[in-house]
């Protein structure tokens, strides 16, 4: 039952999947890592994927893996901004505002790197050639990614999406109130 709900949620929030894969692609471009194949969205698990070559440096793998976290969060927050106060705070709004909230929350929800991303990061970081500093930094990141994946069963990704949508408006209200 839960997997059916999860499947439906991924379909409904498909813009987030597209932006997630596009973010991976962007970070591949920044780090000059060849992209071999990209699927922005499909109606099966995984709902999107990107295949890239193994980078020449381990830190690039980390950046490519966690890139969507920043890109999805920022884009989700910006898109949700006009609709956040009417829809989330005052439970009212016009069609455009509801659309922006759906889009913004959908994008922000897919900020968390996938378990596939985590495995990728883990593999490249725990190579004998990788420096100790990167191992120290990347290990908790991988831990958090796994936590995020578990949390998504408890709708942590949705809660995160809504929190991202409300963060900037709430901050502005607190500053000026």
């Amino acid at each position: 039952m839960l997997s059916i709900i999860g499947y439906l949620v991924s379909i409904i929030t498909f813009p987030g999947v597209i932006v997630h894969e596009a973010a991976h692609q962007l970070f591949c471009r920044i780090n000059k890592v060849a992209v071999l194949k990209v699927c922005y969205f499909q109606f099966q698990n995984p709902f999107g994927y990107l295949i890239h070559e193994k980078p020449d440096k381990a830190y690039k793998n980390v950046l490519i893996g966690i890139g969507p976290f920043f890109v999805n969060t920022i884009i989700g927050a910006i898109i949700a901004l006009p609709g956040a106060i009417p829809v989330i705070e005052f439970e009212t709004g016009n069609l455009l505002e509801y659309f922006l909230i759906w889009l913004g929350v959908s994008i922000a929800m897919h900020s968390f790197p996938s378990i596939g991303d985590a495995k990728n990061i883990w593999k490249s970081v725990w190579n004998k050639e990788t420096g100790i500093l990167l191992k120290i930094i990347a290990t908790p990141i991988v831990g958090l990614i796994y936590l995020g994946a578990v949390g998504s069963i408890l709708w942590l990704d949705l809660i995160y999406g809504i929190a991202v949508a409300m963060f900037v408006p709430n901050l502005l209200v607190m500053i000026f109130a």
Partner: protein
Amino acid sequence: MNNDNWYQEQFFNDEFDYPRCENCGNPKIEAGYEMKLCKECREKLYRKPYPILIKLLGVAIVAVVIIALIHFPSSLNAGIAYERGLQAESEGKYVTAMKEYKKVVKRFPDSTIALASLFVTSYQNGEIDDLNALYDKLEGEEITDDSLVDKVNRTVDCWNKYYYISDELDNILQKAKNMDNDKAISLFQEYMNKNPEDISSATYYYGILLYDIGELQKAKKVIEGALKSNPDNYEGQLLQAEIYSEMGEYQKATDCCNYVLKHNVEYSYAYDTLARVELMNHEDKKGLKTARKAFQLNQKDSGIVATLAIAYHYNHNTRERDAMLKKFKKFKDDNTYDLDLMEGIFSGDYQWR
């Protein structure tokens, strides 16, 4: 082994398979990568363009966001107003809170949260005429905030308890205007015996009747009894203050006003009643200060304007007094009681205190 020489030697070896770009076969591959690609192919692959559909969707979304951001400042202002309203409400400043919530309702007229907050603060400020319209909008709607639901329910209970007049009571009030005092009193008593559950509003109006006909001791007893079980009847507290004031019990009158102000520090009617108590007690400077405070909070009530005019009179400021009297006469609420009071005091024909 010297790799450069070794590759050079192998170049002439037709059987040696030296590394080439996996994409184009170029032997000049970039070092350091597991995947063998030349610089040009790698660049082509990492610069893989986004599909045109993705680009078009991106442009459409940017356009939509820009259009929506035009309305963002007004939404933000409503959010700020609501936050200010909450802060004011927590400090007992219900007039300020109500003003802020009105701004929110103006921007979001269908927001149940905004309407509910305005409903609660309107009641706290005695704006009873607005409650019906607000209640009609709220009826049947779901409020997700549990604490706000509690506040609304408590407000509705108080509103019913202290302001709801049954048809029968309304009938008695209409008849009492043109009736002998004794008959009016017995009608009230009969109604209250028959309707003990309607004790709050009936008692309050009975108290008003007794006060109006000068039966101050009886009025005091009736209202004291009603307030013992319902001290949050703030109109009743202020009526009690007036009764105490008429009987020379100024400290008790002040205590009643302060009880109301403790709950709502911006209740203009409480300041108005307190000002009259102070003026009756010959505390003229204090009375003027309090009357000004009431006027600052509420310039739309003729009674408050009258109190300020009286305060100016007792402080020998005839210019301001006459300005207030002029302002009073512009009201269309037919407040003949205060008009007669002022004219009597100012001409010296009536000994108010």
